[in-house]
């Protein structure tokens, strides 16, 4: 196929657009059904407590209450490892997080649930559940939880070192190490060395739609679920595991989803709603409150990091070392693995040692959040890179370019990079007019930073059926959070040679489409798009056979070009051929499944201008430019949208957002007023520059753009603040009190 595309690179209106601007689209909480009961969850008021007893009798007696459940109502299945398509997790952790058993491990940990005909009755009844707790001391940060004598969350947990269980009882679930070369020799060679400690706070994905799920344990024994999720098959498989029933006994219908960013991959509500439905024989809907979302769902880890980088006078980086301790929350899985794999990934460094620690603490179990682990790590690295560039008297982009990772660069975790766009992103930053624009005022500074995310492939399925009017129906299983129906349909349209408006994409339930992994890891346009590409190829192949039949020739003699089939003077359009399916063999349905290789990682960079008020410590973002390698931008507006959204989440993370915990482990700012995500008034326009270094592993060169853009802003803003007021910030968020403190410390 030539690279002159007719659909790819255009900006059509999304297929689900009309429903979403008229209020017709059905999201998780909008789902209605006759006889619906409302469920409410009781959550632990303590960050760490033994559950001595739960007395539900008063709640059960409350008028209107139909059922009350606790962890004891889940089947007693033996523990096992469960593969939810993104790596394995012990069933006991998934189940334990859904409803606490024995111990509550964080404030907000679900303990029991009530179903009643009215939501208000359920809310009243849940207060009548009498839980006796023995309150235990809590550990809230990684360094505290790693201390000798720290309160232990899981008595049976032993530190693992790459598959090896040690006999250490501790809160460190896992320790890993990557080694490349010899850092002793590397630092000895260095003429400038910088080293700092960094701390970042727990932050939340902050999607505007709270989690919502409805379940019906049907009379035929099947469990039907309607919910807002990034992955309907993950919900199916996790729900089946927790309920100890076969996966095919569960059907999950994904509703529209009001944001996820990684936080709507784990299951929280579905198994609880299912058990309540089993007990009542009626469908049960549970919708979280905003406080439930903050206190009971996965934020992304806070962390402690110590990082050291050395370079020669000529600007060659000779060695780098990182110590990363990430807070997993109540159960292991702190995303420190990806932090370790990305912390120095942007640079070609011969001598590297990286130590990572996955540490459980008494906070909500963390979940993925857009390039999970990478923004924290890049905050440290990119701040130090800026400092080194300054020490060496080099332009910060030139310094990065001198050391930038390229095809063939070996990462500290082992593999060599394939074709990547790190250099191209840096060049685009350098060439951007923003980089050379005057700052125009005192207390202003400009910072740059870059970041990397791997992206993932994973399994996807797609079918395409041809209608007699020449349109096609495209069935896929990736829940659409940002217009992916359209970016997937565009890839099919390009192959079929028809306008994208003639492709009708639909996201189907788990009974109706083949296995499809989560919308996450920047994979949807890449992998489900690839499945659509293959399914469209399958349609074209079958359509060629039909044309061949019409003309009584061999299918191999038929060419297809931009929706026209031809051979030796014969020619017929896709549309006309579609009218002849019944007489040439019946309907045409193309199908494809993929579990692709060829995943292409994405680099991103930012240029940020700030003004810091030295009186109040407030930072104002004056100008912000995001640059990212998309590989190929299928729908450029959606690529820009991902870059802008990721940038602004990064800005919020950098300047303001945090879980403000009191010593007892209660988040004291668990409302949107106090958590304070960026508003329209806090921001300038977010300029974007899409770089396209096509991924040779994908038929259209797609890399995936959902994540890398959140990686640079944390350090980009820290560097801008430094250049504005001369203080290096090594703690997030960089809010007014933190900036004032840093200014006072400097004096």
């Amino acid at each position: 196929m030539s690279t002159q595309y007719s659909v790819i690179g255009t900006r059509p209106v999304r297929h689900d657009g009309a429903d979403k601007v008229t209020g017709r689209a059905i999201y998780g909480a909008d789902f209605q059904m006759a006889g619906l009961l409302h469920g409410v969850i009781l959550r632990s008021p303590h960050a760490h407590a033994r559950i001595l007893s739960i007395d539900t009798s008063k709640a059960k007696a409350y008028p209107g209450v139909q059922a009350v459940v606790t962890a004891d109502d889940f089947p007693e299945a033996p523990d096992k490892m469960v593969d939810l398509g993104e790596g394995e997790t012990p069933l006991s952790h998934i189940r334990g997080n859904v409803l606490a058993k024995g111990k509550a491990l964080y404030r907000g940990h679900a303990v029991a649930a009530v179903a009643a005909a009215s939501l208000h009755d359920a809310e009243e009844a849940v207060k009548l559940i009498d839980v006796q707790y023995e309150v235990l001391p809590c550990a809230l940060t990684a360094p505290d939880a790693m201390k000798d004598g720290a309160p232990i969350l899981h008595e049976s947990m032993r530190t693992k070192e790459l598959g090896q269980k040690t006999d250490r009882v501790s809160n460190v679930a896992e320790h890993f190490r990557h080694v490349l070369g010899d850092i002793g020799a590397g630092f000895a060679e260095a003429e400038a060395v910088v080293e700092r400690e960094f701390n970042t706070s727990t932050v939340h994905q902050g999607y505007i739609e709270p989690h919502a799920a409805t379940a019906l344990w049907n009379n035929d024994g099947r469990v039907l679920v309607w919910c807002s999720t990034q992955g309907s098959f993950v919900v199916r498989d996790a729900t089946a595991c927790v309920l100890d029933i076969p996966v095919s006994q569960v059907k999950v219908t994904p509703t529209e989803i009001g944001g996820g960013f990684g936080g709507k991959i784990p299951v929280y509500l579905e198994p609880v709603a299912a058990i309540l439905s089993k007990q009542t024989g009626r469908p049960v809907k549970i919708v979280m409150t905003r406080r439930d979302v903050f206190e009971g769902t996965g934020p992304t880890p806070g962390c402690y990091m110590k990082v050291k980088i050395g370079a020669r006078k000529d600007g060659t980086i000779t060695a780098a070392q990182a110590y990363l301790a990430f807070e997993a929350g109540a159960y292991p899985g702190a995303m420190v693995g990806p932090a370790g794999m990305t912390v120095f990934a942007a640079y070609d460094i011969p001598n590297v040692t990286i130590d990572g620690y996955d540490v459980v603490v008494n906070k909500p179990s963390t979940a993925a959040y857009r390039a999970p682990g990478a923004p924290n790590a890049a905050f440290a690295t990119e701040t130090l890179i800026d400092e080194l560039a300054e020490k060496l008297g080099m332009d910060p982009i030139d310094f990065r370019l001198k050391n930038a990772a390229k095809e063939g660069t070996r990462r500290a975790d082992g593999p060599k990079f394939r074709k990547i766009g790190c250099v191209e992103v840096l060049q685009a930053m350098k060439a951007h007019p923003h980089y050379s624009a005057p700052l125009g005022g005192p207390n202003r500074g400009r910072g740059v930073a870059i970041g990397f995310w791997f992206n993932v492939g994973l399994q996807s399925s797609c079918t395409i059926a041809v209608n007699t009017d020449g349109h096609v129906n495209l069935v896929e299983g990736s829940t659409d959070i940002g217009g992916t129906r359209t970016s997937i349909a565009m890839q099919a349209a390009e192959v079929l040679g028809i306008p994208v408006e003639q492709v009708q994409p639909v996201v189907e339930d788990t009974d109706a489409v083949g296995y499809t992994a989560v919308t996450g890891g920047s994979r949807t346009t890449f992998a489900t798009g690839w499945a659509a590409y293959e399914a469209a190829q399958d349609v074209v192949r079958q359509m060629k056979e039909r044309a061949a039949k019409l003309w009584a020739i061999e299918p191999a003699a038929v060419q297809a070009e931009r929706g026209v089939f031809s051979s030796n003077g014969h020619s017929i359009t896709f549309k006309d051929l579609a009218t002849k399916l019944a007489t040439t063999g019946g309907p045409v349905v193309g199908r494809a499944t993929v579990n692709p290789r060829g995943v292409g990682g994405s680099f991103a960079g930012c240029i940020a201008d700030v003004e810091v008020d030295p009186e109040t410590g407030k930072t104002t973002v004056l100008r912000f430019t995001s640059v990212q390698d998309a590989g190929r931008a299928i729908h450029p507006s959606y690529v820009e949208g991902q870059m802008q959204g990721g940038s602004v989440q990064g800005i919020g993370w950098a300047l303001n957002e945090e879980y403000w915990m009191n010593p007892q482990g209660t988040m004291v700012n668990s409302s949107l007023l106090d958590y304070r995500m960026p508003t329209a008034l806090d921001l300038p326009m977010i300029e974007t520059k899409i770089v396209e270094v096509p991924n040779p592993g994908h038929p259209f060169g797609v890399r995936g753009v959902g994540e890398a853009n959140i990686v640079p802003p944390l350090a980009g803003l820290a560097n801008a603040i430094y250049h504005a007021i001369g203080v290096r910030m090594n703690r997030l968020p960089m809010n007014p009190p933190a900036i004032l403190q840093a200014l006072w410390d400097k004096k």
Partner: protein
Amino acid sequence: MATVFIPALLQGLTGGRSKLEVAGATVGEVVENLDRAWPGIADRLVEDGRLRTNISVAVDGEVSPMGLLEPVAAGSEVHFVAAISGG
């Protein structure tokens, strides 16, 4: 022969060696052969006939969706890396 890179924390099992030349047509065979030379290593990488939790294998820089079944060519580089997902 493929070049297998031994993760830092497994090098205690390989006498400190960080790179080994190992025969095998698939990752599974490579691990078996590795274990014959350096007993105990398979146990650290494989459980119930598949790669352990949170371990992925990358052959020539590409994380394999096939795990132990992934073909390995002569001269290939084999790395055991942390499994990643994303948001």
